[in-house]
C-alpha cells in the first residue's frame, strides 16, 4: 500500500472484539509494509552498528603505520555511509507509510460507523466537549463523574451521547497512538535483532570484552522500563490538567461577551491563572521523571563504557587485544544506545496504544437499535400520513399545523412521524404502509423530519444545499421562501473572497450566523429536498414576527400540493395552515382552522397566545363579543377580496 493510493476503497471488517485483537488485525493487514520496514531497519541499524569497527580499524591502521589499511577503512566507511543513508531514509519511508495507512484505515472505519449509526448517535454533544477533545485532551470515557455529562431535565440518551464523544475522541487522540504502535513493531524488531547480532559479533570478534558488553547491554535495555509507567502516568496527569486549562480558556472566550457585558473578568482570569499554573507544575513534575530517565540513560551506558575501558586497557596492556579493538568496543557501546532506545519506545507505544485500541474497538462494535433493512421491500409510499398512537392525520397535499403544549412531546411525535424512532410504539402509516417496516432509507426519503435543532454542516452554501432532492425545487426559490436574503449578505461579508453567496463558507454548525439565520438556512435546505412529506418542528422559533409571516406565506406556496406538517405555536404560521390539530396529553384534542380554534378552544388559546389559564378564563367573556365582531370583519374582508 502506497500513501498515494489512500484512502482504501474498502477498509475491511475490523476484528473489534478487544483492543489487542484490533491492533493485531491492523498489523496483519499491512504485512507487506511491516516486512519492508523490517528489512530497511536491519540495513540501517546494522550499518550504524558496523561503524565502530571502521573507527577501530582505522585507529589500528594508524598505530601500525599502514596507509593502505587506513585507505581501506575509508572505503569501508563510505560503503557503510551509503548503507546508513539508504537504510535510514527507506526505513523512515516505510515506517511513516505504515503509520499513515493504519491511521487512515481507522479513520475510514470510524467515518463509516458514524454514518451508519446516524441519529442513533447523539442529540447534543456540547461544544466545549468537542473543543476539549479536538485539542488533544485525553479524557477517559470510562472515568466516572467528570467525563459523563449529566442532564438536569431528562434522561436523554446518555449512553449514546457518551459513545458520540468516544468516536470523536478516538478520531482525534487515539488514532495516532494506535498507528504508532502498529508501525513501531517492525522497527523495534529490527533494532532488537541488530543488538543480538552485534553482541554475538562482538563476542566472536573479541570474546573477553564482547562478553562484558553482551551481559551489560540487556541490563541497560531493561533498566529504565520500571520507571516508564510512572512517567507515563505523570504525563497523562499533565495532559489532563492541560485539557482542563484549555477548556477553561475556551469557555471564558466563548462567554467573553457576557463577561464584558456584566463583569467578572478578574474572577475568571484568576481561575485560569490557577489552572495554568497547575499545568505548569504538573509538567515540571512530569519532567522530573523524564530527566531522571535521561540521567540514567547517560549513567548506565557510561558505567558500561568505564568497565570496557578498564578491562580493555588491562587486556591491551597485556597485549591480548589491540588498541584498535579497544576503540571498536568502546565506540560500539556508544553507538548501541541508539537501537537500545527502541526498547523504551515499544514499551511506551504499547502502554499508550492499548487503552486507545480498546476504545476504538468498543466504538467500532456499536450497532443501531432498530433494523435499518426493514421487513418490507423498498418502496416510496404516498398518501395520507396517520399516527395511530395520537390519532394525528395529515392529509396528502395539505399543510397541517400541529399545536402541542409540551415541546418535548412535540419533538417525540415529530420523530415518530418519520418512522424508525428511538422509542417503541405502533408505526406511523403513510398511505397505509407502516414506515417502521420499510428500509430506513426508503422511510427517510418518503418523510423528511427537520428536528428542533437542525445542524448546518460546514462548507460552502452550495455544498450545504446540495442534498439528495427531488430536483423540482431550485435553490433560489427555496432560499427565497425561507427569507434568506440577509443571510446571504452576511455570508458574503464574512468570507474571504466569495462574490457569489453560493461560494461563501458556513462555519461549523453555522456558528458565525445568528440563531434565526441558521434556522432559515436549515429550512431552505429542507425545502430543496422536496420530500413527499415534510415535517418541520418549530422551524421559525428564533425568527422575528415580520420575517416569520413572510416565511409562512413562502413555505405555503412552495409546498402547494405536497404534504407538510408544521409543529408550531406561532399564530402567524397557524393562520396559514389548511388544518390545525391540537395534541394534548398524547392525543388529538381538537381539529380545525386557527381562527376558529382560537375562539372556541380554551386550551388552544392558552398555548398559542401565551396567556395563563386564568387570563384566558377572564378574557373568555369578552371573546364572545369579540368573536362576533371579528367574524363580521372577516366577512367584510372576504367580500372586498371577491369584488376585487
Amino acid at each position, binding site marked *: 500500500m502506497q500513501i498515494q493510493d489512500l484512502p482504501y476503497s474498502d477498509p475491511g471488517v475490523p476484528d473489534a472484539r478487544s483492543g489487542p485483537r484490533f491492533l493485531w488485525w491492523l498489523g496483519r493487514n499491512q504485512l507487506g509494509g511491516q516486512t519492508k520496514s523490517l528489512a530497511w531497519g536491519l540495513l540501517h541499524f546494522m550499518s550504524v552498528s558496523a561503524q565502530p569497527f571502521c573507527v577501530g580499524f582505522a585507529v589500528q591502521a*594508524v598505530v601500525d603505520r599502514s596507509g593502505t589499511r587506513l585507505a581501506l577503512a575509508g572505503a569501508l566507511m563510505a560503503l557503510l555511509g551509503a548503507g546508513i543513508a539508504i537504510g535510514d531514509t527507506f526505513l523512515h519511508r516505510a515506517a511513516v507509510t505504515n503509520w499513515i495507512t493504519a491511521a487512515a484505515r481507522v479513520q475510514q472505519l470510524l*467515518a463509516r460507523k458514524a*454514518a451508519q449509526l446516524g*441519529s442513533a448517535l447523539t442529540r447534543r454533544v456540547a461544544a466545549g466537549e468537542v473543543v476539549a477533545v479536538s485539542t488533544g485532551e485525553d479524557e477517559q470515557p470510562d472515568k466516572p463523574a467528570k467525563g459523563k455529562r449529566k442532564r438536569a431535565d431528562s434522561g436523554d440518551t446518555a449512553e449514546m451521547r457518551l459513545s458520540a464523544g468516544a468516536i470523536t475522541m478516538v478520531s482525534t487522540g487515539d488514532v495516532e497512538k494506535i498507528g504508532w504502535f502498529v508501525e513501531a513493531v517492525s522497527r523495534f524488531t529490527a533494532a532488537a535483532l541488530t543488538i543480538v547480532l552485534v553482541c554475538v559479533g562482538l563476542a566472536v570478534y573479541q570474546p573477553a570484552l564482547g562478553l562484558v558488553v553482551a551481559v551489560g547491554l540487556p541490563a541497560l535495555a531493561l533498566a529504565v522500563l520500571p520507571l516508564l509507567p510512572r512517567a507515563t502516568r505523570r504525563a497523562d496527569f499533565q495532559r489532563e490538567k492541560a485539557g482542563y486549562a484549555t477548556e477553561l480558556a475556551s469557555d471564558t472566550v466563548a*462567554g467573553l461577551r457576557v463577561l464584558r*457585558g456584566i463583569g467578572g473578568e478578574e474572577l475568571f482570569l484568576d481561575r485560569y491563572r490557577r489552572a495554568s499554573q497547575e499545568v505548569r507544575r504538573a509538567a515540571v513534575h512530569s519532567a522530573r521523571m523524564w530527566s531522571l530517565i535521561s540521567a540514567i540513560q*547517560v549513567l548506565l551506558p557510561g558505567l558500561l563504557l568505564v568497565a570496557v575501558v578498564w578491562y580493555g586497557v588491562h587486556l591491551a596492556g597485556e597485549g591480548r587485544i589491540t588498541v584498535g579493538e579497544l576503540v571498536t568496543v568502546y565506540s560500539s557501546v*556508544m553507538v548501541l544506545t541508539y537501537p537500545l532506545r527502541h526498547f523504551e519506545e515499544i514499551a511506551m507505544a504499547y502502554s499508550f496504544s492499548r487503552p486507545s485500541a480498546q476504545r476504538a474497538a468498543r466504538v467500532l462494535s456499536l450497532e443501531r437499535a432498530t433494523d435499518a433493512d426493514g421487513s418490507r421491500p423498498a418502496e416510496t409510499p404516498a398518501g395520507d400520513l396517520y399516527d395511530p398512537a395520537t390519532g394525528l392525520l395529515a392529509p396528502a397535499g395539505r399543510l397541517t399545523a400541529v399545536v402541542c403544549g409540551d415541546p418535548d412531546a412535540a419533538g417525540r411525535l415529530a420523530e415518530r412521524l418519520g418512522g424508525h424512532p428511538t422509542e417503541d410504539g405502533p408505526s406511523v402509516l403513510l398511505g397505509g404502509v407502516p414506515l417502521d417496516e420499510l428500509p430506513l432509507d426508503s422511510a427517510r426519503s418518503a418523510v423528511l423530519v427537520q428536528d428542533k435543532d437542525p445542524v448546518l454542516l*460546514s462548507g460552502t452554501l452550495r455544498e450545504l444545499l446540495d442534498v439528495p432532492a427531488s430536483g423540482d425545487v431550485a435553490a433560489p426559490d427555496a432560499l427565497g421562501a425561507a427569507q434568506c436574503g440577509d443571510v446571504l449578505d452576511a455570508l458574503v461579508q464574512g468570507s474571504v473572497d466569495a462574490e457569489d453567496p453560493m461560494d461563501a463558507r458556513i462555519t461549523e454548525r453555522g456558528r458565525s450566523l445568528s440563531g434565526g439565520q441558521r434556522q432559515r438556512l436549515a429550512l431552505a435546505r429542507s425545502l430543496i429536498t422536496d420530500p413527499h412529506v415534510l415535517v418541520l418542528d418549530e422551524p421559525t422559533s428564533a425568527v422575528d414576527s415580520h420575517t416569520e409571516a413572510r416565511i409562512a406565506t413562502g413555505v405555503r406556496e412552495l409546498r402547494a400540493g405536497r404534504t407538510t406538517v408544521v409543529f408550531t405555536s406561532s399564530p402567524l404560521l397557524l393562520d396559514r395552515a389548511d388544518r390545525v390539530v391540537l395534541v394534548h396529553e398524547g392525543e388529538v384534542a381538537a381539529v380545525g382552522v386557527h*381562527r376558529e380554534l382560537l375562539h372556541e378552544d380554551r386550551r388552544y388559546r392558552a398555548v398559542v397566545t401565551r396567556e395563563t389559564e386564568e387570563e384566558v378564563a377572564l378574557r373568555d367573556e369578552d371573546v364572545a363579543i369579540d368573536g362576533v365582531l371579528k367574524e363580521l370583519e372577516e366577512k367584510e374582508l372576504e367580500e372586498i377580496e371577491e369584488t376585487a
Partner: protein
Amino acid sequence: MIGVAPPAYDPAAPTTANTLPVGAPSTVRAYVRELLQRHRRAFVLLVAVNTAATVASMVGPWLLGDLVERVSDGAHELHLGFTVTVFVLALVVQAAFVRQVRLRGAMLGERMLADLREDFLVRSVRLPPGVLERAGTGDLLSRITTDIDRLANAMREAVPQLTIGVMWAGLLLGGLVVMAPPLAPAVLVAVPLLVAGCRWYFKRAGAGYRSEAAGYAAVAAALAETVDAGRTVEAHRLGDRRVELSELRIRQWTAWERYTLWLRSVLFPVINVVHVTVLGSVLMLGGVFVLQGWIGVGQLTTGALLAQMLVDPVNLILRWYDELQVAQVSLARLVGVRDIEPDAGDATLTPEGREVLAERVHFGYREGVDVLRKVSLEVAPGTRLALVGPSGAGKSTLGRLLAGIYAPRAGRVALGGAELSRMPAERVRSHVALVNQEHHVFVGSLRDNLRLACGDAEDAELWAALGAVDADEWARVLDDGLDTDVGSGGLALTPAQAQQIALARLVLADPHTLVLDEATSLLDPRAARHLERSLARVLDGRTVVAIAHRLHTAHDADVIAVVENGRITELGSHDDLVAADGAYAALWRSWHG
C-alpha cells in the same frame, strides 16, 4: 520523475476572514524579547548546566585517547586506577547535569508557555466590547485552542532543545579545537553540504507541516461533524456523502503527508552523509596527520569519538527547528490581539440622570454603507421601549448603540447627558446591560456563574437573586447547592435554566437600564412564558429597550418603535400604532387573529 510537488489544495489556507489582527513581525519580535527578558535568569541557568554537562561528556573520549596514546607507545605505567576514577566522576557529574538540563529546560519552557497563554487571555478579556461584537468569538476561540496547542510543543520542547543543541554542538567543536586542533578543519568539510540541504528543506518544511497538521485536523473535524449532526445526516440521507467527505479529507491530508515525507527523503540522506563525512574525514585526515607525525594516536581517537558525538546535537537542532517555524505563525496570531488598542475611555465622564437619548445617529459596519440613518429617540427613565421590524432592518444595531457597545459614526447617544461611547466599558456596564440570546453558562460552580456579576456577593444574596427569577426551586435540590459544577462537563442545564442564570446575574449587577436583544427567543413557548414572568419582575422599575420579535412583548411596551431599513418609521404606543393602521397594525392583526 523523482520528487513530489506540494499538493494544490492547502487545508491551512484561511477560509473565514481574520476578524482580529495578526501580529506584525516587529510586534512578535518585541514580544519574544520581552519574554526572554522576563526569564533571563532561568535561561542563563539552563546555559550554565548545559555547559557543565557537555564538558563532562567530553572527558570520556579525552581519557580514552590518552590511554590509547600511552598503550600504543608501549608505556608500562598507565595510572589506570586514577583514570577510571576520573572517568567515573566525570560520568556522575555528566549524569547529574544532564538531569538538570532536562529539568531546567522544561521549567523554562513551561514558564514561558504559561506566561504566553495567560498574557493572551488577559488581553482577550480586555478587548473592547465593540470589537468583540463585531469580530465574534470564533477567531479568538481558535487562537486559544489551536494556536496555543501548537505553541505548547514549541515552547515546551523546541526552545530549550534548540538552545541545548546549539550549545552542545558548539562546545563539542570547541573541545575538538582544544584537544586536537589540526582536526577541526576536517569537520568543516561537510558544512557546505549541510547548509545547502537545510536551506532547501527549511524553505519548504514550515508551510508543509502546517498544511499537514491542518489536513489531519480536517479529517477529525469532518468526522466530528458527522457525529454531531447524526440526526440531520440521517434525515437528509447524507451518510454516504459524509463517508465520501471523510475519504476526501483523508486523501487531502495524506497528499501532504506524502509531500513532507518527500522533503525528509531528501533531508535524511543529506544529514546521514554529513555525519559520515565528518567522521570519515576526521579519521582519514587525522590518520594521515598521525602518519605524518603531526598529531598523536590519542588525539585521533578523541577526535573521532567527538565527531561521532556530534550526531546527537545536530539531529536535535534539525528535529526542532521546523517546529519553531510552525510556531512562529501561531505566535503572530496570539500576539496580534495586543495590536488592538483597548479603549480607555474618559473616566471623568459620569451620567447625571437615567434618560437615554439618541440624536440623529448614523452608523455603519462598513465604510460608506450606513445601517442606521438619522435615528433620533428619547427613552424616559422607567419606560419600556420595544423595537420591532424585519430582520436586517437595524434594530439589533440600534440596541447595541443604546447599550454603548458601538460608537455612532455621526450624531450622539447619551445617558444622563454623558456620551456612552466615550465612557470606559466598565463604567457603562454599571448603568446599562445588554442581554442577548447568548446565555453562556461558564464551566465552574453555580456560585462562580453568579458572582461574576457582583464579586463580593454573599451566598444569601445569590440565593435571593435566584429566588427573584424563580430558579431557587431547582437550585435548592442540587446535591452540592451553589458548589454544583455546571457548564460543559458539569451538570448540563436546560436552555431555560441557563436563561434564568443570566437573569439572576442581572439582578445582582443591578443596572438601571437594560437592552434586551431577543433574550427569550431560543426558548420553547412553555419555558418562555414562565421566564417572561421572572423577567417582568427583574425589569420592574428599570428602563428597558426590548428588541422584540414576538409581538406580545411589543404589546406590553410603553412605546413601540418600528425600525425599517435603518430608520424609525413608526413610533408610539400599541394603541396609537394600531389606530394609525400602518405596518405594525397589519402585523398585529395577523398575529393576534
